[in-house]
């Protein structure tokens, strides 16, 4: 464990970090541009191609950009040094962790999990800002049946970009910022198991973002975010940017997944047995664990697609013996687990904060764990419900309907866990807690509409319509993003040392949630009436519903801008936060603000779980005297709880 390393403090030596001292975001961009330019020139001359932006050239250029960026940020210094037989000295490790570097450490290949968490948060917000702007353009175009605000080419390009960027943003929105910043402290660790891999996973995403943004000038992604072949074979070089982006992202998520999983398996504090491990930790591990098998399939699909596009392959080309269904299977084998990669950690964050703001123990911890495990297990067996109407395997539609509908059972248990937790609680309606309530509203609608879509005949009618678009926005945005915003409001004081402006938080909350429901209830209506997805124009019949949706979307946009203002303003000037402003019992609230470099001076020993609300108190209020037998007995084996010190008992 890293704990052994830090007992003797070391004076910062000026040579610590070696070459890494000179590398940062600027050298990374320079490296990317230089290698990208070199790749462009070389591939262009080798191919003797008159077309400056042919698929081959774009593929090589973007790959070289990413490689140059990673070299420039210093991602390879460790492996190269190691190959040369030079290992890091302790002061190098401290430099890598960002010691005494102030703000500069956020722009370096820094290994401190807290720095990586903040970096992920900023990256996530940048992605949301971009994807959200595209959403506003889409909705503006759809404000009337033939608005001509966007031409069809631009519209299709934007729809694909919006989808992909939002999917990536929602995948990283919880496990990135909070899984990296909060989770290690929550389990009583000083850092992640593989700090350098942590920095690697973050900088790979940063390297990949310009590639996906470059798609905007390379003709966009006119295939929707699914990138279905053979439409993708016809697509402009924006599609190559898509492939490069997905391949890099798959590597990043594999690295992050291995790291987070290992951290949780091996670095939990002494005494933190599985039944004392906070539910958010389960959610994080479930999410990244599910991503480990899922994203390599997406990566494989893009490798095959690039063979088709640039090497004359025929994997997805029917006339050459290939099959478009191969692509859609690979895609949805990733695509459905991916939905739960997004949802589970967001719901787990809400399950983590609901006990705090209800002052109640988490209701049925075991049910929560079992249902997360059940969702994970089932989610890899449902992918073909996205393909009921594809004609691929009509005989399998019945079995896939079975597995899909079975997911409603563990998902339903998660609702019970939250409802049982608020039951007779002392509800503190902070912004994070309101996110829980918004989720209860939105996710019920998202879940029930999912049941219609799981039904094969109903899906034949609804597949490919706006109904589907509204449904998955209710799950991924209404439950997922809402949960992530709740998590942000909840952990903001710990991550920034300042309170998030509450007033702005509420204003944003209502603009976003009301706008959200207006937008997507309107979209359900036009979907039921028969409006297809991803259309630039539509029949007059759908005009009213679309107008309503667009107005709702503007309200979401206003709310998000308020949130952005609140985050920036509070981060800079907010009220200074106490170490534990919410009275929570998980370990991250026991460390001081600002959090020391390695979190804990003395590693904590855990003697109970973090949900023991009300347990040591005498029934002073007159509400508790008669405990029903069925409700009692849970706290018997939890041991003493030192007041104020929460779970921390002292060092080894």
């Amino acid at each position, binding site marked *: 464990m890293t704990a052994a390393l830090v007992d003797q403090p070391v004076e910062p030596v000026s040579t610590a970090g070696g070459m890494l001292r000179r590398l940062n975001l600027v050298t990374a961009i320079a490296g990317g541009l230089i290698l990208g330019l070199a790749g462009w020139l070389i591939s262009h001359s080798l191919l003797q191609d008159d077309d400056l932006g042919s698929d081959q050239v774009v593929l090589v250029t973007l790959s070289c950009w990413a490689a140059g960026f990673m070299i420039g940020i210093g991602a390879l210094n460790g492996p190269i040094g190691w190959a040369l037989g030079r290992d890091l000295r302790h002061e190098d490790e401290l430099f890598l962790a960002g010691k005494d570097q102030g703000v500069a450490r956020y722009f370096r290949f820094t290994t401190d999990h807290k720095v990586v968490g903040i970096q992920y948060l900023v990256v996530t917000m940048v992605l949301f800002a971009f994807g959200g702007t595209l959403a506003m353009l889409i909705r503006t175009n759809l404000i009337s049946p033939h608005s001509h605000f966007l031409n*069809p080419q631009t519209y299709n390009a934007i*729809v694909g970009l919006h989808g992909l960027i939002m999917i990536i943003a929602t995948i990283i929105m919880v496990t990135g910022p909070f899984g990296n910043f909060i989770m290690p402290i929550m389990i009583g660790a000083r850092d992640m198991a593989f700090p350098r891999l942590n920095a690697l996973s973050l900088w790979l995403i940063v390297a990949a973002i310009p590639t996906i943004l470059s798609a905007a000038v390379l003709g966009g992604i006119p295939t929707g975010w699914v990138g*279905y072949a053979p*439409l993708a074979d*016809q697509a402009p070089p924006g599609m190559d940017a898509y492939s490069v982006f997905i391949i890099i992202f798959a590597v990043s998520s594999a690295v992050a997944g291995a790291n987070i999983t290992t951290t949780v398996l091996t670095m939990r504090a002494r005494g933190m047995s599985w039944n004392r491990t906070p539910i958010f930790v389960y959610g994080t591990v479930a999410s990244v664990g599910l991503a480990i098998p899922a994203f390599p399939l997406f990566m494989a699909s893009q490798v095959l697609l690039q063979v088709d596009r640039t090497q004359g392959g025929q994997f997805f080309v*029917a*006339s050459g013996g290939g*099959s*478009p269904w191969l692509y859609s299977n690979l895609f949805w084998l990733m695509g459905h687990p991916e939905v739960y990669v997004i949802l589970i950690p967001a719901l787990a964050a809400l399950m983590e904060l609901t006990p705090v703001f*209800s*002052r*109640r*123990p*988490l*209701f*049925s911890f*075991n049910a929560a764990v079992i249902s997360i495990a059940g969702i994970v297990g089932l989610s890899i067996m449902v992918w073909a419900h996205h393909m009921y*109407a594809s*004609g691929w395997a009509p005989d399998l*539609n*019945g079995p896939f309907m*079975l597995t899909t*509908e079975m997911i*409603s*059972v563990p998902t*339903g*248990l998660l609702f019970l866990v939250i409802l049982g937790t608020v039951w007779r*609680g*002392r*509800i*503190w*309606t902070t912004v994070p807690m309101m996110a829980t*309530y918004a989720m*209860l*509203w939105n996710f*019920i609608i998202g879940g*029930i509409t999912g*049941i*219609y879509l*799981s*039904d094969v005949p*109903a899906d*034949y*009618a609804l*597949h*490919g*319509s706006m109904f589907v678009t509204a449904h998955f926005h209710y799950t991924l945005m209404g439950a997922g993003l809402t949960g992530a915003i709740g998590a942000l409001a909840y952990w903001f004081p710990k991550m920034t040392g300042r309170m998030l402006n509450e007033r702005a938080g509420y204003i944003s909350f209502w603009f976003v949630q009301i706008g959200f429901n207006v937008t997507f209830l309107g979209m359900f209506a036009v979907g*039921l*009436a028969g409006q297809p997805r991803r259309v*630039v*124009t539509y029949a007059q019949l759908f005009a009213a519903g679309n107008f309503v949706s667009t107005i709702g979307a503007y309200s979401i946009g206003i709310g998000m801008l308020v949130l952005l203002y609140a985050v920036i303003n509070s981060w800079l000037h907010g009220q200074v936060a106490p170490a534990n402003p919410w009275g929570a019992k998980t370990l991250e609230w026991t460390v001081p603000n600002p959090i020391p470099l390695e979190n804990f001076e003395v590693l904590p020993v855990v003697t109970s779980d973090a949900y023991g609300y*009300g347990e040591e*108190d005498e029934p*002073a209020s007159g509400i*508790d005297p*008669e*405990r029903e037998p*069925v*409700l009692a007995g*849970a706290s018997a084996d939890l041991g003493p709880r030192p007041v104020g010190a929460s779970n921390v008992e002292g060092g080894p």
Partner: protein
Amino acid sequence: MSAESIVASPKRRRRDEVRHIAWLWLGLTILLVLFSIWVPARLMGPPASPTMRAVESTMTVFSIAASPVAALVWAIAIYSLFRWKSRGEPTEDGPPFRGNGPVTASWAIVSSVLCVFLLIWGLAEMTSTTSPAEASNPLVVNVTGQQWVWTFSYPDQGDVESDQLYLPLNRPVVFHVSSRDVIHSFWVVQMGIKVDANPGVTTKTSVTPDKLGVFDIRCAELCGLRHADMETSAHVVNPADFAAWITQNGGHT
């Protein structure tokens, strides 16, 4: 019971809470059931086939089945938000119970039963909507998607070709669907049928139109620049009119 004090006993208060939630649950359930009966099927419009009729009744039935579930979740949420709300930061903790075996078990059992119901309903509906057309002597129509038009041809009527779909009333139809380029999706909106048009293979779907009129055919899979314009009409006409249309276009019946 006779000695009612001003402050109700805790047990009494808990019973009242449960009763209030039950009323709220009932009220919300009724509202949602009314919504289920009136709204989803109505939004889908008048059905033009038994398949669409089955889909619309599925929407209604599933909505009704889901109503008490949604109502229960919302009832507890709304009640807790108003009646268990603390003003500002709570000064005391709530009751410390960590679960309730019977409640968890019944929740799991009820949701499993609902799940089994959905499955059986869906399987029965699948059987009833697919088998009739395949059983009797159906009309065969070849549907070809290409960027960005639909073409229909009638192989048993002398290969009559048209960019609009004509169907005789009450005769089962089997569509053999394919594509010349990318994936499209053949969707007859008011008949509730849809199947992808894939290059290189033929997929099938079937329906028995049982309503005269003109209905919408749209492409339901993004297929390139003019995907939004890839729509045409399905005309359901009397068998005699259908025969006349076929002959008019050089075919034979």
